[in-house]
């Protein structure tokens, strides 16, 4: 698996707090292939954003990477010094945040922010950078880009701003774009435009995308593969179609069932009882065990590692560990 | 040699007849001159007048013989015409010196160097009033439209406020009010050339800063040295202190006449009772005030007048040890077994340690069950209280520019009427004394006059109109190499400075 663009290996992110160390991401591994769209889903607080921040080296202190490694094209980037990491940010890994309203500095024009970024990473003159910036704006669908480039962010609407943000993330042709809930703050009707835009542009430039969202629908339409996080752990990862239509982890299937759809009629939604545990109260064994209807003794004892299910699919659940199931059945009898 | 001289406040104006005020006169003495001057021992000295006498023919006329060959800074000659003009100007409505010349009927020129001043009656002491009345050049004044002193109603500035033309030993080089005034020796001055050829005069209001300026060598002479710093400065290398008594007495006084007081918690007037007044005199510990508050820099005295003043006697100054028990007993005897309480008004920016003196008295009064509330405030609030009779008990300092007791009687003892008694805050009123005081003004027989003064003082002391604390002392601090004596009116003249030890 050396051809992966990005590999995250046994990533562990910790927050030392007054009540001890919180492990916000625990032993998460996944790969992103060049040009691939990896969806990352999970409930709020599952660790999606932290994973993104860890990759791009922007964990806010006191958060820190406590274990594992992150490789970009086989080169370790989790232990780089600040300056080298800075060169990777924007240049090789771009990032789009959730809220376009606050992502842009209100005191600078769009041109200033674009040109600044371009010139940080590329050896271009001011005029060349500006030309490039206009072309980019044009590409992300801003009408009359040459004129509007000198406007301030507050002159743009929300959707337009997110387009500017995307232009900023893409302006140095990164190999990977991490999009952290890029549409949550936008209007329903605009959301699909933006998702389409990200997908299109990245495909066009061969950039891989790590799409963080809690909207399964977006993942279903956009991603090639999907990783499901639960309480800082990887629950399931695999090709989108399989995971959505035939979820294996009880959490994933619960999640799928609890989403109301436009087509199916069911009087009651499937509901997973309880809520995701807090980081300081993650139960022993499988983190999902208090909410899991199919949990058995082993689930309360040992933490499941992702089990290879073929087709690039992995599930972290003892139900798929033949030996455990066998002992369980024995006990049931 | 240049002398850098600092004191607490600047001259308010350069117009010689506008303000009768200490720092103003002190500065102006260097630029303008008076007919007669005052030596450091208080005696009169000839200045622009070489001789003065009461006319043999008419006891109401003063004759002044003027110095010849004196020139104004602009080169014009000094003559009797200028004196007549100046005395008239000093008598003008807008003059600050008007009151000192109120007995003058007319001034006339007899010849170029003789002037007659006709008084409304015999005025044996008139010449004593002249030590701060400066002489201006008539021609210059007329040319510059400053025939009269500054008039506020006119709403315009007077040329003489910032420009000078005197006969004095120094000419004005530059002046930035409240910042710096530079004067240079006047080459054509009639007297011997002074050792100080240039004076840089700087007011520094903050006491600490003033002392710091001397310590850091930024000034050479500091007037108005805070008493507490004297001992320390004396010990400082390269700095010496000249001290001497000032012609000013500091005393308390009280409303001893009204039937009821404004601030007392009793229905009558305790100060009206001789026992209470006696108690006060027993309560005050002048030695302690001298030792602690004044750091030894004062002359404790029971007499409300400094020794410079005609009429002073050693007996009057004598005072006893405080006796708190007796004082308390007297207060009780007067009908206040539980004591009484009263407001004590005090300035806090006028006299040396004025507020601290009052505070000390408050403590001492407390031991005789007199509970005084100290109200200490700025002079602009304090003095109107006395003038308007709005205080029961107050501190006042009184300087005597004429060096004669009559000046004290006129303002402080005489019942308040016309020009008399304006600072008589005690409301003391004794028609018999009033008549005697009026008599003093015209009495030319000096022996009889002195007897009368003694008689008046006898009554005033007996009635305990004043509770005197001390005579203020002055201290000038200067570089070791400078010699300057203390002037009893706090009007040092830099012409008297000598250098070297």
């Amino acid at each position, binding site marked *: 698996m050396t051809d992966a663009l990005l590999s995250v290996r046994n990533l562990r992110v910790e927050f030392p707090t*007054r009540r001890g160390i919180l492990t916000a991401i625990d032993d998460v591994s996944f790969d992103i292939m060049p040009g691939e769209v990896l969806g990352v889903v999970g409930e709020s607080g599952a660790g999606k954003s932290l994973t993104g921040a860890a990759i791009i080296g922007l964990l806010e202190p006191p958060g820190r990477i406590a274990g594992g490694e992150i490789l970009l094209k086989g080169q370790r980037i989790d232990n780089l010094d600040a300056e080298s990491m800075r060169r990777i940010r924007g240049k090789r890994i771009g990032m789009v945040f959730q809220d376009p309203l606050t992502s842009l500095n209100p005191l600078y024009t769009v041109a200033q922010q674009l040109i600044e970024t371009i010139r940080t990473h590329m050896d271009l003159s001011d005029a060349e950078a500006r030309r490039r910036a206009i072309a980019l704006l044009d590409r992300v669908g801003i009408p009359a880009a040459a004129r509007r480039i000198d406007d301030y962010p507050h002159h743009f609407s929300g959707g337009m701003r997110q387009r500017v943000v995307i232009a900023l993330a893409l302006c140095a042709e990164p190999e990977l774009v991490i999009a952290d809930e890029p549409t949550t703050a936008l209007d329903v009707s605009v959301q699909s435009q933006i998702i389409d835009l990200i997908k299109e542009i990245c495909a066009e430039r061969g950039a891989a995308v790590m799409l963080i969202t809690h909207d399964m629908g977006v993942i279903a339409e956009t991603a090639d593969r999907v990783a499901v996080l639960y309480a800082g752990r990887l629950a399931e990862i695999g090709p989108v179609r399989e995971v959505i239509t035939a979820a294996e982890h009880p959490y994933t299937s619960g999640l799928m069932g609890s989403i109301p759809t436009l087509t199916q009629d069911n009087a009651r939604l499937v509901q997973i009882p309880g809520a995701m545990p807090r980081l300081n109260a993650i139960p022993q064994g499988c983190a999902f065990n208090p909410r899991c209807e199919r949990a058995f003794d082993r689930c309360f004892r040992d933490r499941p590692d992702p089990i290879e299910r073929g087709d690039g699919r992995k599930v972290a659940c003892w139900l798929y560990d033949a030996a455990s199931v066998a002992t369980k059945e024995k006990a049931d009898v | 040699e240049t002398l850098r001289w600092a004191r607490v406040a600047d001259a308010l104006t350069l117009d010689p007849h506008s303000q009768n005020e200490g720092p103003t006169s002190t500065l102006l003495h260097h630029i303008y001159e008076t007919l007669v001057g005052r030596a450091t021992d208080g005696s009169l000295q000839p200045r622009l007048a070489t001789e003065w006498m009461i006319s043999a023919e008419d006891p109401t006329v003063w004759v002044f013989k003027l110095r010849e060959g004196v020139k104004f800074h602009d080169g014009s000659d000094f003559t009797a015409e200028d004196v007549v003009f100046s005395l008239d100007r000093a008598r003008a409505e807008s003059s600050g010196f008007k009151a000192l010349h109120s007995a003058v009927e007319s001034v006339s020129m007899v010849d170029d160097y003789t002037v007659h001043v006709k008084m409304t009656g015999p005025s044996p002491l008139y010449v004593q009033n002249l030590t701060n009345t400066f002489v201006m050049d008539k021609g210059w004044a007329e040319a510059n439209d400053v025939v009269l002193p500054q008039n506020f109603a006119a709403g315009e500035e007077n040329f003489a406020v910032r420009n000078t033309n005197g006969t004095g030993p120094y000419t004005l080089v530059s002046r930035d009010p409240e910042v710096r005034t530079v004067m240079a020796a006047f080459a054509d001055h009639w007297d011997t050339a002074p050792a100080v050829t240039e004076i840089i005069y700087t007011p520094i209001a903050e*006491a*600490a800063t003033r*002392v*710091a300026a001397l*310590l850091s060598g930024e000034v050479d002479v500091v007037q108005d040295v*805070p008493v*507490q*710093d004297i*001992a*320390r*400065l004396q010990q400082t290398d390269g700095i010496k202190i000249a001290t001497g008594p000032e012609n000013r007495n500091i005393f308390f006084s009280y409303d001893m006449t009204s039937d009821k007081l*404004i*601030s007392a918690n009793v229905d009558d007037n305790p100060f009206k009772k001789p026992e209470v007044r006696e108690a006060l005199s027993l309560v005050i*510990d002048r030695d*302690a*005030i001298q*030792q*602690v*508050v004044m750091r030894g820099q004062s002359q404790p005295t029971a007499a409300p007048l400094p020794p410079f003043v005609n009429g002073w006697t050693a007996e009057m100054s004598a005072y006893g040890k405080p006796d708190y028990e007796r004082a308390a007993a007297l207060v009780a005897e007067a009908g206040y077994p539980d004591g009484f309480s009263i*407001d004590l008004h005090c300035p*806090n*920016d006028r006299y040396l340690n004025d*507020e*601290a003196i009052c*505070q*000390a008295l*408050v*403590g*001492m*009064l*407390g*031991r005789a069950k007199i509970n*005084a*509330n*100290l*109200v*200490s*405030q*700025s002079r602009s609030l304090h003095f109107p209280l006395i003038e308007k009779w*709005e205080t029961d008990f107050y501190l006042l300092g009184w300087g005597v520019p004429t060096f004669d007791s009559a000046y004290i009687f006129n303002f402080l003892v005489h019942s308040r009427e016309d020009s008399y008694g304006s600072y008589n805050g005690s409301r003391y009123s004794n028609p018999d004394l009033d008549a005697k005081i009026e008599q003093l003004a015209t009495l030319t027989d000096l022996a009889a006059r002195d007897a009368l003064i003694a008689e008046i003082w006898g009554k005033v002391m007996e009635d305990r109109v004043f509770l005197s604390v001390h005579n203020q002392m002055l201290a000038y601090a200067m570089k070791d190499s400078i010699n300057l004596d203390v002037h009893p009116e706090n009007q040092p003249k830099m012409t008297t400075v000598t250098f070297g030890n």
Partner: protein
Amino acid sequence: MNRLARMWDSDIAWSFRHSPVAIVASVVALIIIMGAVLAPWIAPFNPFDSASLNLMDGFTPPGVPNQFTGNSYLMGTDNQGRDIFSTILYGARISLFVGFAAVVFSMVLGIGLGLLAGWRGGWVDSLLMRIADVQLSFPSILIALLIFGVARGFIPPTMREEVAIWVLIVSIGLSDWVQYARVVRGAAMVEKSKEYVQAARVIGVHPTRIVLRHILPNVMGPVLVIATIGLALAIIAEATLSFLGVGVPPTQPSLGTLIRIGQQYLFSGEWWIILFPSIALLLLALSVNLLGDWLRDALNPRLR
């Protein structure tokens, strides 16, 4: 018990326990405050009782017997023979009283007007904020000077001494209310639009009750921070005003007045008159300021 345990366990308490600066500052502040409050019981002398003073004790150096009376004082005496240590305790009492009262005064005024402006909005808000602008555009010591001057005219001279301290409090307080008003107004406008306030409005809770029970407690955080810093500032302001000659009577000196008196003896060798009160004032103001600093950080969830 349970409540105590919970308090001990709260974030604020935790952050307090882990901030040596805050602990030291609060211990120092507490010592001074206790000393001031208990002054009549712990001070060896009563410096405010003029009759008990012996002038001859004046200028006794610390720990050295007086040359006349032979009395000796821990921190020496001032120009009136007051024991500096006792005077600091009594003076701190006055300074603290003025400080606290001024803060309470400006706080009550500021919070009241701020809530009114924030809640009512519209022209009430505009009017109050314009007044605040005018007030802000005028420096606090000038305001204090003005008020002091005006009050002096209205108060009969005999009462001035008793009233002086209240005038001082009002003067300092009045120049400070704007800060509270602004912060409270801003916070109130934020809180007002929060849904819990709307929920209360939906069920028809009386506006006064909403303001007092819902909004007020939620805007107190920043107010508390301003108040601590304001306390230090008020104490200093009192000292500054006394330097300019308006303030408490010299027979009952505050720390500031004591320093003003001591300042006259800076060059004369009686260093203790200014030194000890200055240290006391510095310690007091510094510790209160540090506490305010700590509180600001501790109450700001985003800085944790």
